[in-house]
């Protein structure tokens, strides 16, 4: 029943968005919309012109956040390019706006997933054990890696990751452990089973995986995330170098017999001269 209502709501939202684009998309209609809005008892100082000029950002944001939160991808991956290339914000404005929307989006997503009880806390706590110190260490070591090297690594990493997602079979079509060698089979066996019971009665049960590889990946990924120092818009000279890093968290039935979709996040960043950790001066920032 939940599935049906979710599908109905999504379809209705899409139809409303399309209808709004068709009805209000043209310039003459925008003039009519301004007249119509001005006839309403809006609060004093309501920016009617700006609202009419940028109303389409709202349905686009709903669409982006729906895709991001349903797949576990960072919303800033969509928002920052959207703000820069479509809305026309400057890179610094786009980065700040993208990160701000991500804060609410990811926070809301986490809250909803926790409410649905689909979070594998037993695995998450081990990942956090390596990830939290690593992101702090990465922030301290932000000046050690050349930004150009990280930029190239980030771009190539995204291409490889994209090819990986397109090429390999989805988890539903794989037999858990079918690609494991003897070593991994031995490591992944005999560790019991992890069971997650959701609020709507569904139960996900899978073999508890060998966690050190996952912890290692989370540690490395968060170290790189710390390198990019999210949240600080950059001001880079045109001829300066730039850098990127990527963070990846994944759980794969194929790799460790765990369920769940890949959680993929990637960010591009640039770097200005290194600054002490915790200062308010701009350091590396996300461009996503």
């Amino acid at each position, binding site marked *: 029943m939940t599935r049906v209502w979710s599908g109905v709501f999504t379809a209705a939202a899409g139809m409303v968005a399309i209808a709004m684009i068709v009805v209000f998309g043209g310039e003459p209609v925008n003039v009519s919309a301004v007249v119509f809005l001005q006839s309403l008892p809006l609060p004093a100082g309501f920016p009617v012109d700006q609202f009419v000029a940028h109303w389409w950002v709202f349905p686009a944001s709903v669409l982006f956040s729906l895709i991001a939160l349903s797949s576990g991808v960072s919303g800033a991956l969509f928002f920052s390019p959207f703000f820069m290339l479509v809305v026309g914000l400057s890179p610094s404005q786009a980065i700040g706006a993208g990160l701000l929307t991500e804060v609410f989006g990811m926070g809301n*997503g986490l809250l*909803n997933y926790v409410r649905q009880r689909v979070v594998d806390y037993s695995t998450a706590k081990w990942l956090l054990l390596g990830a939290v110190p690593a992101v702090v260490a990465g922030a301290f070591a932000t000046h050690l890696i050349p930004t150009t090297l990280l930029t190239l690594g980030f771009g190539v990493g995204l*291409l490889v*990751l994209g090819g990986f997602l397109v090429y390999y079979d989805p988890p539903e079509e794989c037999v858990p452990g079918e690609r494991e060698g003897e070593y991994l089979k031995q490591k992944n066996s005999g560790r019991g089973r992890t069971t997650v019971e959701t609020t709507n009665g569904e139960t996900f049960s899978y073999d508890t995986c060998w966690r050190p590889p996952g912890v290692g990946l989370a540690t490395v990924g968060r170290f790189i995330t710390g390198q990019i120092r999210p949240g600080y818009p950059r001001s880079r000279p045109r001829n300066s170098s730039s850098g990127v890093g990527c963070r990846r968290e994944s759980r794969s039935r194929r790799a460790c017999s765990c369920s769940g979709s890949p959680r993929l996040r990637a960010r*591009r960043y640039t770097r200005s001269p290194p600054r002490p950790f915790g200062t308010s001066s701009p350091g590396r920032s996300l461009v996503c």
Partner: protein
Amino acid sequence: MLIGGTVGTRVGKYVPSEVMEPVLGVVFAIVGVIVLASDLLA
């Protein structure tokens, strides 16, 4: 973000991986090309 995120967290588990993964792969590849092009051509 709140509307889309709330709907997304509910429909996400019903989206088949065979659809989601190729789409994400294409998106990542496009972003990767943009990153490399913007850095190499700058």
